[in-house]
């Protein structure tokens, strides 16, 4: 039996990502309002979750792959440095992304948007500190292997995405049906600061 806490971290980060209006629920609500349909809100959640999962899985699998072919400690340190650099980039230039997807987008566009948004925010990188203990525990030799660790990494991405989808979907429906958007004026707290801090903490955790 592996420890429970890394799974909780993976799920908790999913909830944290799902909570962020910039990660998708707000877009789903907006599209539902434009097309006056709750079905559109629900349908939009799937490509948003898929795009998010893809962004995370690419990073997770790359980490496991490189960890299995070169020294795992080295890969961990490299990831740590990348995370801190990403935090810096996010803080300095996070506001100047090219906007590629607008309100007329279809499901593919929404998935692309979610993928780009999650990638740019370093959503996958943020997961690596939790992936390390999970993937190591999954193999008898306690090292990263392409086989066993990959499956565990995929399971972790699954848990992360499910948590993200559950939170994002719940908020989207509550806001669409009952709350409305007026609360955004005061209630949209600046999670960017928290986000940047989370990236830095995750990075330092890997380096040390």
């Amino acid at each position, binding site marked *: 039996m592996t420890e429970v806490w890394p799974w909780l971290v993976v799920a908790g980060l999913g909830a944290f990502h799902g909570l962020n209006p910039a990660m998708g629920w*707000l877009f789903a609500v907006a599209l539902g309002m*434009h097309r006056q349909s709750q079905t559109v809100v629900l349908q939009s959640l799937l490509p948003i979750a898929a795009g998010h999962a893809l962004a995370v899985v690419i990073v997770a699998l790359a980490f496991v792959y490189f960890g299995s072919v070169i020294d795992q400690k080295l890969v961990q340190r490299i990831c740590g440095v990348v995370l801190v650099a990403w935090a810096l980039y996010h803080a300095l230039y996070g*506001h*100047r992304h090219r906007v590629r997807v*607008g309100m007329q987008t279809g499901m593919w566009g929404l998935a692309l948007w979610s993928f780009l948004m999650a990638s740019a925010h370093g959503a996958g990188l943020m997961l690596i500190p939790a992936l390390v203990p999970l993937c190591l525990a999954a193999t008898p030799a306690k090292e990263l292997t392409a086989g066993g660790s990959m499956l565990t990494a995929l399971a972790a991405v699954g848990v992360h995405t499910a948590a993200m989808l559950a939170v994002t979907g719940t908020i989207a429906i509550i806001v669409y049906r009952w709350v409305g*958007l007026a609360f*955004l*004026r005061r209630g*949209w*707290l600046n999670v960017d600061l928290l986000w940047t801090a989370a990236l830095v903490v995750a990075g330092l955790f890997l380096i040390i």
Partner: protein
Amino acid sequence: MAILQPDPSFYPSPRMAMKAPPETLSYVATFDPARKVPDQLAVVDVDPKSTTYSQIVGRVEMPNAGDELHHFGWNACSSCLCPNAPHPHTERRYLIVPGLRSSRMHIIDTKPDPKNPKIVRVIEPEEIAEKAGYTRPHTIHCGPEGIYVAALADPDGNKPGGIFLMDHENFDIRGQWEIDRGSQEFSYDFWWHLGHDTLVTSEWGTPDMFEEGLVPEILLGSKYGRKLHFWDLHERKHLQEIDFGEEHQLVFELRPAHDPRKAYGFVNCVISLKDLSASIWTWYKDGDKWAVKKVIEIPAEPADPDDLPPMLKGFSAVPPLVTDIDLSMDDKFLYVACFGTGDLHQYDVSDPFNPKLTGKVRIGGIVSKATHPKARNGALNGAPQMVEISRDGRRVYFTNSLYGAIDEQFYPEGIDGWMVKLDADPNGGISFDENFFIEWPGPHRPHQVRLEGGDCSSDSYCYP
């Protein structure tokens, strides 16, 4: 500086923005037509409870003379709440104030004291030309990718004019906006339908066609701008042009519906070569394409040639010269400024194809020289020009100068600046606020008005 909650002046939807508190200050771009003393951004007190109501309470002098301040805008606005490109924690704080003639950009900080704004950065024309490939910056809009600026010319003063982007936090020039400009050459105004991923641009001409005034041969030859261009806002690609035809000249101000679900807007055509009338057109989505329809025509008024400036004597008529329009936040009322006759019209455009005239005032005008209850001088010159509407739709402000070199063509004695305010009835009808008349101190003339916290031509919205 990062803030914890969204800027309180950002509203998700136009419906919510209408509930914003009334503005207490306005900012007015003013210029010296002789280009001898520096232009100024003036701060006007518009709080009826204040002891300095209807007075200029602050001024920011530009560092140079001859900029010709004209239009300007905010660094950030309600579109920062858009779901696809959120920047909710950017402050609406800086005014981006270009010199239309000098091509110089001034960044003016309205905090901490909004009555005493300060210039924090000046971007010289050479830098804009080098980084963006444009000169003669005109319209400013805050939008999904930062600050968008429509400029009328390339670095040599030729075609094509176009749009460039500026960073909304550090104001660096980020470069040309268009990726594929298609058939577009002339530039003037632009805005967008955020709900339909569409940007619209209109046309004036190149600097040689207006910097010394309107050129009669170019006008009579129908060589000024007369097209609308429709673009994919995110692909930055030209999609379609609509030519208004040889009869129509100067297709200017673009006022798309604020409700992001609505795919229509209004644009003014200053003059018809057939009968000197002015017109308002509705553009709208017709299937996959955009189309236009003339919905208002304002006729010229017969006049004694002795009362007319040289350019108009031969016509024995005053053209209405509709040079600005503005649409209320609920997309219900369209305000139409007639720089020739001195009229300001209010139309109910709830049905965008069947406007109904619901109100009218007259002040100034080439022939009428109509006065205002609070004016000392009984014969006002200039006429309604740049119009701005409060977010709640109850107050309308306007000034009386069009453009330095063109003012004198219609008002040969020169224009003595003024600014007035109308009270608007939510059910239709407009009247002068008899306590609001600013006799503008010379040599400056006032042009565009912006209201504290946003107004009906500053913000765009992603939610209905």
